[in-house]
């Protein structure tokens, strides 16, 4: 049996993940720079990853950690495409302010 299971209740991981996820939500809602918004999304994905890994270890089930692996795959693809779109937006508007992008026309 792992030392961490004996000494750290699994609730602590739930609380830590909730706090990190909420900080990510707060950043997405309040920041206007698109790069920082993308970083906050990465933070939220990581909070979920941490919780999946914690439950995977506590239940000795490897499927949770495989799921974390796939989330990392999707996060990497998302970051690449998102930053590509961001560079394109910057070329057209000379800014990364997301509040300039509230209309689909023009």
């Amino acid at each position, binding site marked *: 049996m792992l030392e961490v299971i004996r000494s750290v209740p699994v609730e602590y991981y739930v609380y*830590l993940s909730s706090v990190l996820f909420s900080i990510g939500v707060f950043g997405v*809602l309040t920041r206007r720079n698109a790069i*920082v918004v993308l970083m906050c999304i*990465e933070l939220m994905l990581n909070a979920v990853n941490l919780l999946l*890994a914690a439950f995977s*270890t506590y239940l000795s089930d490897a499927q949770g950690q495989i799921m974390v692996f796939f989330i990392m795959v999707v996060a990497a693809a*998302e970051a690449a495409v998102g*930053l590509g779109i961001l560079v394109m937006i910057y070329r057209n508007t000379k800014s*990364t302010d997301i*509040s300039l992008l509230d209309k689909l026309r023009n």
Partner: protein
Amino acid sequence: MTLAIFLTLAVISVITALLMVFAKSPVHSVLYLILTFFTIAGQYVLLNAQFLAVVHIIVYAGAIMVLFLFVLMLLNLNKDTEPQKSAGWKLAGAIAAGSLLVTMVGAMHGSIQIAGAEQSNPQVGLVENLGKVLFTDFVVPFEIAGILFLAAMVGAVLVGKKDLKV
């Protein structure tokens, strides 16, 4: 001892995450987020998920955040060009995120009971076990992830092209 390590890592990760959100300069945000990712990698080591810890550092600190830094330096963003939302928006965001936190913690508090944790297998997060599961039960999602990467690569190159002739 393990609890102390857990709490230290948790406090550092929360503080650096907050600094990431509140930092004025986007470059500082990226650096604080890298620190947060390192503390999360420390949590994976604590959970004996060693494969995840290494992959996490390689993918996040090594690839994704370097990509973010490159884009930041390419676009030459700094504190002066940083757009700011009004205080009302910040208050609304804080209330929304705080409500979410209270709801999640309140829903989870005292409701989790894990049976059989005493007979847990500490080998579950090692490369041997994860490799077996990944290439037997999850081999189809694994191949689909390859296709996803190919699509993302083509899409990123196509989106990033300067003058697109269709």
